[in-house]
């Protein structure tokens, strides 16, 4: 390829600064400046929250020392705490948040419904069921619980897809089937809990709240690997997904292979959500709120995949840091904080939407 003597061209067709980066070779990439700014700011916020989070705990470390240690210039003691204990935990938080944010954005776009997120559709409940089966019926190890949660999430995801499939998956049917499946699995989970003895039940409840406590490198690598494969795959299909927002007929007419795009993206979203839930438990409301918050910041109709991903990561790490600041290290699982914040956000959303006369 030739040297990219790129120039940006402002599109006069939209007041929102949609620009394109073009090379003389005829290649061009769409640039949404506002979305780009949002992504950069969110990444900066996530990084800042991560540094603060690494410095927070029974043995506080100033942000400057954290940065120095991360760059390899710290003292021995801090190096152990930062690199072995706290960094992997923060990375798990970032990856889980990113996966949930991206998975949520995909589900909401496919179902064309802001409530069509994995927590509402029963995926988290499915993962919980998998984990509970391992904890209650098998008293399995932590690894077994993770695997159980992964299998539970995947099975639920594919069950929803199959049940909702009738010559293609459609938004409403997906949401309704998901809510039905969610109700059934929640009942099963309740039954499993009543069957558990006290120790198992306590362990189960802690898992069900969603927590980053004690997460280490062994959770980081599989999640990172999965994201490395799925995120590019998802972004390649994102243009097709953007078209399906205009309805199946229009997107077919434009040459989008709607059902294939949807299948690839749904499988990816199920994998991402199941893996994230397996790693940290069902952290509530991130998948629901991250895409909506990202959308309000970018003010762009499209599925806003990358901004949602960044928003999810930022939200989760910030929530974890806030809970540790307010309640002390490892006192309050992050799922409690995201649940409370997410609930408040949802109510605010309902109120403002009603004021605007949309519901």
């Amino acid at each position, binding site marked *: 390829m030739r040297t990219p003597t790129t120039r940006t061209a402002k599109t006069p067709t939209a007041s929102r600064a949609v620009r394109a980066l073009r090379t003389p070779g005829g*290649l061009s990439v769409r640039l949404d400046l506002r979305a780009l700014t949002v992504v950069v700011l969110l990444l900066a916020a996530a990084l800042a929250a991560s540094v603060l989070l690494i410095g927070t705990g029974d043995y506080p470390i100033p942000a400057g020392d954290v940065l120095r240690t991360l760059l390899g210039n710290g003292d021995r003691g801090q190096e152990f705490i930062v690199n072995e204990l706290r960094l992997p935990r923060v990375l798990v938080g970032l990856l889980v948040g990113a996966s949930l944010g991206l998975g949520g954005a995909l589900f909401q776009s496919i179902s064309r419904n802001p409530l069509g997120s994995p927590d509402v559709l029963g995926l988290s409940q499915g993962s919980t069921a998998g984990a509970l089966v391992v904890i209650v019926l098998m008293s399995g190890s932590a690894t077994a619980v993770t695997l159980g949660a992964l299998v539970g999430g995947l099975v639920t995801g594919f069950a929803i897809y199959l049940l909702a499939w009738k010559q293609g998956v459609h938004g409403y049917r997906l949401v309704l089937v998901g809510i039905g499946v969610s109700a059934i699995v929640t009942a099963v989970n309740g039954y499993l809990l009543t069957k558990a003895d006290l120790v198992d039940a306590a362990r189960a409840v802690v898992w069900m709240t969603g927590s980053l406590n004690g997460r280490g490198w062994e959770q980081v690598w599989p999640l990172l690997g999965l994201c490395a494969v799925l995120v590019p795959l998802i972004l390649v299909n994102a243009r097709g997904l953007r078209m399906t927002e205009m309805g199946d007929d229009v997107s077919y007419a434009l040459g989008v292979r709607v059902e294939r795009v949807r299948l690839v993206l749904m499988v990816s979203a199920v994998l991402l959500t199941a893996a994230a839930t397996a790693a940290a438990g069902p952290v509530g409301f991130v998948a629901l709120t991250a895409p909506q918050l990202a959308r309000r910041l970018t003010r762009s109709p499209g599925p806003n995949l990358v901004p949602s991903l960044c928003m999810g990561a930022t939200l989760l790490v910030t929530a974890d840091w806030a809970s540790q600041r307010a309640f002390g290290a490892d006192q309050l699982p992050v799922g409690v904080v995201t649940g409370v914040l997410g609930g408040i956000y949802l109510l605010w959303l309902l109120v403002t939407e009603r004021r605007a006369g949309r519901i």
Partner: protein
Amino acid sequence: MKATGKTHAISEPRTTGETNNRRSTVNRLSAENVTLAYDQRVIAEQLSVEIPDNSFTVIVGPNACGKSTLLRALSRMLRPSEGRVLLDGQVIQSTPAKKVARTLGLLPQSSIAPDGITVGDLVGRGRYPHQGLLRQWSAEDERVVQESMARTGVADLADRHVDELSGGQRQRVWIAMALAQQTPLLLLDEPTTYLDIQHQIDVLDLCAELHEEQGRTLVAVLHDLNHAARYATHLIALRGGRVVAEGAPNDIVTAELVEEVFGLRCQVIDDPETGTPLVVPAARRARTEVRAAATEAS
């Protein structure tokens, strides 16, 4: 009482020069012996239709006659359970999706404008089949979008949100999106539904211009027989999934045909504006008399 209609004079009101319905040459788009069904409900069997190149073809017929279904099959939204739809000599289903989308555009009845989308953004999405992963927004895309908006008179609305537009404006925006697709064939499924009479004519005038200017082949499903007769260069009348008649409106629209297709007694007179056939339904009393006479006779 005699049959009310008179056979319409074969005059030359608004022919655009091309000879329609040339059976000898191969047309770009056709359906061959297709059977169309939703699940088990068969809409049409063994239906064959040719869309003459460079025509403004209008498909008419009573409700549930299969006209929208035929349009869906022609635009590969619906896969025929038997028979085949050919586009440029190839079975449409086995042609790559984007290639079809560069040849044949469709304006469906059900389209959703995403929340908060601007007119410019929506029209720009019509460029999808010309784009790729590394060719996302070329200067050509930009030029075509500008041109499409100017052509449909929505250039001034480029920055407005689609959901704040009137029905007529919105339909123009969707047509602009289909134009941005730059296809030599354009299919429109009831483009005038839900519009008031002024905007119906407005949209149809626009269609006629798009047809005449660039020799684009247009296929539209229309409800209003008089609109169809006025604007079409080629008319296909369907009933019960069968083609009852096809040809230039002046040649085929007669009182007998209207009665056969729609079950409506009427007169067909010259449209004072265009000279095309104008269907005037018989008055209520006349129809009752006919019905009474029919009962008497039997």
